[in-house]
């Protein structure tokens, strides 16, 4: 019977995959069947049969499980860790909620701020040539200070293109973005657009939907944004359609591009037209030479050229052309490049140097986000460590049963990682819920970056970090217990653990108090500026831009009709709207002027005689323009700042000559300073004169007429007199309010974050207070029995926390003072930080602490001592 052996290989395979407890029986069956088969159909048949049977045995019930019987790991313990961790969470419900909830809130604040910062940093990155595009800037010195502007003369563009082109792929002259009227047969639309030289679309990587990127070769061509094309043509194909720009330039649509996103310089730019068209419409541009600055110039570097080198090459390009002018020698204009990567965040200049700009808010919010996150982490650590001491007994039992230290370390780490992970998932949910609201608050369109690997990497790092830090204490400290002591109930806590916890609480409250102070200062500052006397009346004041030629030819008719309608009290025209200063000039001379004094710019505003009545300015001395008085046509009305600058004791009647008009003017009145540009800055010295560069219509509504009816009547008059132009207006008070948007946004955001920071700190404090109260239950019971009053117990328990908060206040005050004082320096019109802000913040923090802590302390002080002493 020697040859009756079954194929050994297959039996080995079977032994390998079969469940060990079943193996002998099944193998027995197989062998028995083999013998049967051997008798019946010989060796080959029996062999085939057993092989087939073994193959058929390869099925779930028979294969040994992957984890199972004799492995050399402790996967089995993991189950236990999960179970115990979960039970601990459920056992201390309030602690778990505070701990995980606080961390989740902190994380979602950090995520929101992270998104905000990411968005700020991503500005203009949608342009393909982001790394190589720059804007040409001009700086120069005036009376010892340096100015820097992006406005340049047309001749400089030509000069750069002719003499300095070797560094650049493109040098592109562009008009300032302006609102233009686009007409298609009967439809009219006012949209912003730019006129740029050839190559602009390629340089700024316009994303063409139809038409080619080189479609602006023809003088009368135009690119529309897809939104403008949709508004004008709907479903029609826009390519090849004819349009009229500003009622005078006939153009043909040769391309449609995708709208630029909100974080692009070209956001809301709805058309791109050839510069040559602009030049053809404004032929005077050619004669302006190097002195009139009214354009932007953008460049794209050739690959391999650095901004620094290119900047150095063109530095003197403007000065070389104007050095014959004695004034220009004093100013010494210099040219440099401002890279695209800095356009958004570094757009403020002082003394010719970039002084940052929005980047300071990026830093500020990053810092705030970091702090809020830090607070949440501190909470998490504090509570985790405090409550882990309760588990000393568990450690004792585990050790007695045979746990080695590394297992305990692993267990505690795993628990803290799991909690952080849960908090992170909650944080993502919270962020999703808050995102809309946050977008409204911050004026952005942020989205969750689900597909952004940086986001996930950052989250991962954060989860690892927090889990590691907060898990380290229990992992290493608790796992080192002597099991005998731990089981006997000797508490391991002592000074060693209390002091770090106190330091963490102090850090938390330092941050919170600083944030409270900061928020108060921001709100005070905004309120202070809002309440600033502005020198004119902005209610019911309407401003209409004269966009087309028709405005000028039909103005008289418009004025009579409007005044006759009864809804307009008075109207006038001016060079710029009351909410901005658009023009400033030098070249003034007067008696007693210091001859060494360089031509300081005055803001100059051409107005019609009724301007003062329309805006409601207030006279300090002298009188308003008189419409009938011919001599008033050379009169000046100046503001107080201008009067001070000129140094007249009694300015009215003094004569001032101006090179701009080549005339002698008489000052007829002095008005209170009007806040026209930034409400945070000192007002510019301003001169009002009767001139003819009138671009804006100012309308004062009749206060007795309802604004809505007034507006509709005005609109109907406009549509009657100027049917080709859509009626578009601005309210002075709304324009004024716009100036506060940035600061208000910061105020609101920091307010919200401060509230959250305080909330998180309080959560932590609440948790700690309840922990302390629980630890001292017996002590309180004994004290009560010995006659301590509730009030005394409350004091005893609260005192510790109050001390901590007091210390934090003392640390926070100088830090906050320094930071906020720095911030305020950037505003010329600003508050002084008074001591009561600190007092109020400290008091507020103290009250919040007391309220938080008292809930626990009073509860434990009121407890029946019989119960607290009876328990275990």
């Amino acid at each position: 019977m020697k040859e009756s052996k079954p194929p050994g290989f297959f039996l080995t395979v079977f032994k390998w995959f079969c469940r060990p407890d079943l193996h002998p029986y099944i193998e027995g069956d197989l062998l028995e069947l083999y013998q049967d088969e051997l008798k019946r159909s010989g060796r080959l048949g029996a062999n085939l049969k057993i092989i087939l049977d073994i193959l058929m045995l390869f099925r779930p019930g028979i294969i040994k499980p992957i984890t199972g019987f004799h492995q050399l790991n402790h996967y089995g313990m993991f189950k236990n860790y999960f179970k115990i961790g979960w039970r601990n969470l459920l056992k201390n419900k309030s602690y778990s909620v505070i701990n995980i909830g606080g961390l989740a809130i902190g994380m979602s604040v950090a995520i929101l701020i992270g998104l905000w910062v990411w968005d700020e940093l991503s500005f203009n990155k949608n342009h393909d040539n982001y790394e190589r595009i720059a804007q040409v800037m001009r700086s120069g010195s005036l009376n010892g200070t340096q100015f820097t502007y992006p406005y340049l003369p047309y001749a400089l563009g030509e000069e750069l293109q002719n003499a300095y082109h070797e560094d650049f792929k493109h040098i592109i002259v562009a008009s300032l973005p302006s609102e233009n009227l686009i007409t298609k047969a009967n439809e009219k639309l006012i949209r912003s657009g730019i006129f740029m030289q050839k190559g602009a679309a390629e340089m700024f990587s316009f994303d063409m939907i139809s038409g080619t990127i080189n479609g602006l070769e023809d003088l009368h061509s135009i690119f529309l944004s897809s939104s403008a094309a949709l508004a004008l043509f709907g479903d029609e194909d826009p390519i090849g359609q004819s349009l009229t720009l500003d009622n005078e330039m006939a153009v043909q649509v040769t391309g449609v591009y995708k709208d630029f996103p909100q974080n692009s310089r070209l956001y809301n730019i709805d058309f791109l037209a050839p510069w040559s068209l602009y030049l053809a419409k404004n032929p005077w541009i050619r004669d302006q030479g190097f002195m009139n600055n009214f354009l932007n110039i953008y460049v794209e570097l050739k690959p391999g050229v650095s901004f620094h080198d290119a900047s150095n090459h063109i530095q003197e390009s403007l000065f070389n052309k104007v050095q014959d002018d004695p004034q220009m020698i004093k100013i010494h204009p210099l040219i440099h490049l401002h890279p695209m990567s800095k356009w958004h965040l570094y757009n403020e200049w002082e003394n010719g140097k970039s002084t940052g700009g929005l980047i300071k808010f990026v830093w500020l919010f990053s810092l705030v986000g970091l702090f809020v996150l830090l607070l949440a982490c501190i909470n998490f650590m504090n509570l985790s460590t405090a409550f882990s001491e309760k588990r000393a007994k568990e450690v004792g039992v585990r050790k007695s049963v045979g746990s080695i230290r590394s297992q305990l370390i692993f267990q505690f780490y795993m628990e803290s990682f799991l909690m952080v992970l849960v908090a992170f998932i909650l944080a993502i949910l919270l962020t999703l819920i808050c995102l809309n609201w946050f977008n409204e608050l911050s004026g952005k369109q942020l989205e969750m970056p689900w597909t952004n690997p940086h986001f996930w990497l950052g989250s991962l790092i954060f989860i690892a970090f927090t889990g590691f830090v907060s898990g380290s204490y229990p992992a290493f400290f608790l796992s080192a217990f002597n099991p005998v002591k731990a089981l006997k109930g000797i508490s391991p806590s002592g000074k060693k653990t209390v002091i770090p916890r106190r330091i963490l609480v102090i850090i938390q409250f330092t941050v919170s108090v600083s944030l409270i102070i900061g928020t108060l200062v921001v709100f005070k500052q905004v309120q202070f500026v809002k309440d600033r006397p502005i020198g004119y009346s902005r209610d019911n004041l309407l401003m209409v831009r004269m966009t087309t030629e028709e405005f000028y030819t039909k103005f008289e008719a418009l004025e009579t009709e409007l005044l006759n309608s009864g809804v307009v009290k008075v109207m006038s025209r001016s060079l710029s709207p009351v909410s901005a200063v658009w023009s400033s000039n030098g070249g003034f001379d007067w008696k007693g002027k210091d001859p060494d004094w360089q031509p300081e710019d005055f803001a100059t505003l051409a107005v019609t005689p009724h301007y003062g009545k329309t805006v409601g300015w207030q006279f300090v001395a002298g009188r308003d323009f008189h419409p009938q008085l011919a001599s008033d046509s050379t009169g000046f009305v100046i503001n107080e700042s201008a009067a001070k600058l000129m140094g007249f004791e009694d300015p009215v009647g003094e004569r001032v000559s101006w090179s701009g008009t080549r005339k002698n003017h008489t000052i007829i009145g002095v008005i209170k300073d009007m806040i026209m540009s930034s409400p945070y800055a000192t007002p510019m010295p301003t001169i009002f004169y009767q001139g003819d560069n009138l671009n804006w219509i100012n309308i004062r509504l009749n206060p007795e007429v309802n604004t809505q009816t007034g507006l509709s009547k005005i609109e109907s008059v406009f549509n009657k007199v100027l049917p080709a132009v859509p009626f578009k207006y601005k309210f002075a008070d709304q324009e004024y309010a716009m100036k506060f948007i940035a600061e208000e946004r910061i105020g609101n955001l920091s307010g919200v974050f401060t509230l959250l920071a305080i909330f998180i700190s309080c959560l932590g404090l609440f948790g700690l207070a309840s922990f302390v109260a629980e630890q001292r239950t017996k002590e309180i019971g004994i004290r009560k029995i010995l006659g301590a009053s509730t009030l005394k117990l409350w004091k005893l328990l609260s005192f510790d926390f109050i001390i901590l908060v007091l210390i934090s206040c003392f640390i926070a005050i100088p830090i906050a003072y320094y930071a906020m004082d720095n911030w305020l320096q950037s505003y010329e019109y600003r508050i002084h930080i008074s001591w009561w802000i600190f007092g109020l913040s400290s008091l507020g923090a103290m009250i919040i602490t007391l309220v938080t802590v008292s809930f626990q302390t009073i509860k434990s002080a009121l407890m029946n001592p019989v119960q607290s002493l009876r328990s275990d």
Partner: protein
Amino acid sequence: MKKFSLGEFEEVVMLTVAVLHGNAYGVAIKKEIEERLSRKVSVGALQSALNRLEKKGYLLSKEGEQTQERAGRPKRYFEITAYGKMALEYTRNTRNNLWEDIPKIVLDLKFSK
């Protein structure tokens, strides 16, 4: 109500175990089923069914004697537990109830076809 879950093959295996009373081990069960139902039964299908049934508590197994032809491997004998009996009876009752409740006409029609 899904009180007892018993598949068709499982039912056959259990009934066979009951039939073989006291002598129900792998090969015997396999042969019995093959003989009575004239269908092929693989060792794998049978063993996994037996294990499943034991896990459900319908069968109980114990180690038996070692024989020469099994190369010294022990047999594993199965017997039905009380719970297993309940499961069988339950299955049988449900079948019977169903049979009884079929209207005569349905079967007649079916057979007349």
